[in-house]
């Protein structure tokens, strides 16, 4: 324990020192630890990310204010971290929590973090305590809501089990409240994504509650291509 601690935190110090200059012109002046692999990512996670996204660096946050990252698609994490770093993702929580802390991450570190979190054991869905609501949500998830003010079906991109793929996030196992908040953000234009802003432009609060209830039951198992 002693050697791990001493060594890792020395690395952490350097890593953080490097972290903070990433993205600036000074980045190149300070060398990263020679092995920016999983261990380095773990150091970053344990030093910074874990405080919100799972205290034991397991990627499973306790408060629904913060998303569960364990098992999330690595490409999605990488994209989001870059969007946050550049302040392109600008919803209230992104600003409050992620803009500053991600602003100096290097591309390599972002890759390392994405790899780290995506490799962690994901959280699966759970049976719904409100089957009627979940059934309503299932309808929206699988078929959307037709009409002039339509809501686009989720299954198209997020998949049958909501495992997501590439830049489409895994939703299964996520905190329902977090998902609901993001849907509100998308609907109200606080979180910008042309596709999602359009897809859920007319979704109602009740529909958000329903679809989130359904998603929380999904397994997130890899769906057949």
């Amino acid at each position, binding site marked *: 324990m002693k050697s791990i601690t001493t060594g890792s935190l020395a690395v952490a110090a350097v890593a953080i020192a490097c972290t903070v200059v990433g993205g600036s012109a000074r980045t190149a002046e300070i060398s990263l630890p020679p092995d920016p692999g999983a261990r380095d990512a773990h150091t970053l996670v344990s030093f910074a990310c874990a405080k919100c996204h799972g205290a034991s660096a397991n990627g499973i946050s306790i408060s*629904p*204010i913060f998303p569960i990252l364990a098992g999330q698609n690595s490409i999605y994490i990488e994209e989001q971290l870059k969007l946050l770093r550049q302040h392109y993702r600008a919803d209230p929580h992104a600003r409050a929590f992620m803009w500053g802390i991600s602003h100096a991450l290097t591309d390599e570190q972002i890759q390392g973090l994405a790899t780290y979190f995506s490799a962690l054991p994901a959280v699966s869905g759970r049976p719904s305590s409100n089957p009627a609501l979940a059934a309503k949500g299932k309808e929206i998830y699988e078929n959307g809501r037709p009409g002039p003010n339509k809501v686009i079906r989720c299954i198209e991109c997020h998949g049958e089990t909501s495992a997501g793929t590439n830049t489409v996030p895994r939703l299964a196992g996520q905190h329902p409240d977090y998902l609901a908040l993001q849907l509100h953000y998308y609907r109200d234009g606080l979180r910008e994504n042309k596709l999602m802003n359009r897809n859920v432009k007319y979704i109602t609060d009740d529909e958000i509650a329903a679809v989130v209830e359904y998603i929380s039951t999904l397994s997130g198992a890899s769906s057949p291509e």
Partner: protein
Amino acid sequence: MAISGAVSAGGLTRNGAAMHENNTFDPGIAFNFGLRGGVVRLLNLGAVATLWILGASALMLVAKPARAVPPFARQTGLACEACHTLPPELTPFGRRFKLNGYTLTTRPPLVNDIDDHKRNTLWLTDLPGIAILGQFNYSHYNRAPPDTGQPYPAHAQSDTYQFPDQFSLVYAGAVSDKVGAWLQLTYNGQAGSVGIDNIDIRYSDHTFDNKWVWGITANNYLTFQDVWNGIGSYTIPNFNTVSLATGGVAGAGTTGPILNALGPGVVAGIGAYAFYDDSLYFEVAAYHSAVPGGGSPVVDSVSLAANGGALDRFAPYARIAYERDWGYNSAEIGASALYVNWIPSVGYISKQQQLAADAAAVAAGTPGTPPYTPAQTFNPGAINRYTDLSVDWQYQYNGQHNIFGFLGHVTHERQQNSDQLVAATFTGSTPSGSAIYTNPTDTLTQALVTAEYFRDRRYGGLVSFTRTRGTWDPLLNGGNGSPANQYETFELDYVPWLNFRLLLQYDVYQVVANNQSPFNLSNATFPNSPGFTNIRAGNNNTWVLGLWMDY
């Protein structure tokens, strides 16, 4: 400061030690008033109440611990809400940030040095973590407190405008990758002086898996290092006012345990802590007298003069807490124990000195009772022993829009008075020619319960209830001896920006027994107004309009 008040009471009264948990000390002020208290004693003005009034005026000279500071936000890249529900109350994340020694950072190092083992040997950012903190308030008393400085009450204003009430310069942030500091210099509006305020310097480390976080804290305010808000320096409510309980009207103040009174200018200590599995917290610490302006090593007479007394040797403190977080919820329950040997400051003249003074008076042709001049500020060997046992709790719901908090503590204090100062076994003399305590042992129990609610960190308020009861000790507390008090604080907050807060507070008093109340004091002082134990506690009710900001 509170203890300064106690000086004049002729020892460490509980009133004196009663500084509200939200208050901190300003040593410079304490020192000045301590001296003034000493002058009072030397002049032998006599009446205990008068002394109490003058000394206890120091009670009002307190400052609150500072709150969240922008340097932490600048250092971490996180907005205030990451660490605070509303400053100074911490979220689970904020607690971990503090326990990790304030070291989390994303600031680029402007100067960075590492050794051959890639160990950081120097790490300096482009900007030091400096912040300005300001608190301003306008207070209105239900009734103008008596001007206790005069033989007969003169007109006093029922309004007080503190502009500023407190103005601080703070360094807050990482010093190295494992060391962080909070260093605060405060201008205290009521005292009109600048002094060293809260200091907390931490070393922290943790295991690779974060299972254990441990650290060492050196600080000058017992409980300032704590990360929960049910007890100690950051108890909620936490706005500095001149209300009787939180700042004190000149010459008065509510009673409370000594746990809340060991602050800047009085003590400094060092502690070690460990946080296991994100839930179990252990801490042990020891505090010692640390009075600015004294010699080296600390000269007790300086400490005594400055603070109404001094810690004798080390005061051990132990703390344990358990926190569990789930969903938006965070709940903590904790306990702490403090043991203090305290040398109370009393005007003292020995029997021998008294006899010598008598003889001198006879020789001078003026026999009778001479105006004894206390030769020193303590009774040799007189030490009071305090044992404070507390339980505290904090429940917090930190939702997307709603914040709800329920927190508080119960502290039981046992005060064993030195038999040299207790009436039945009194030795020596004091300016008033009497003992200081009626009882060999006094006890005090204080309970505080606070409920708060905020919406979107913008609107909200709180209700807080405090109740203190204890053994009746007439020599200590005046009147019938009861140290009792009971009051509520109602607060409405408007936070247009996270670093700018407006509040309206109303403090309502049901019980303010004996010398705690300036109105009771005046009654006790004047022969045509016999002392009352709880005459219209509501006279002390106070409206406060406050502004807090930092940047």
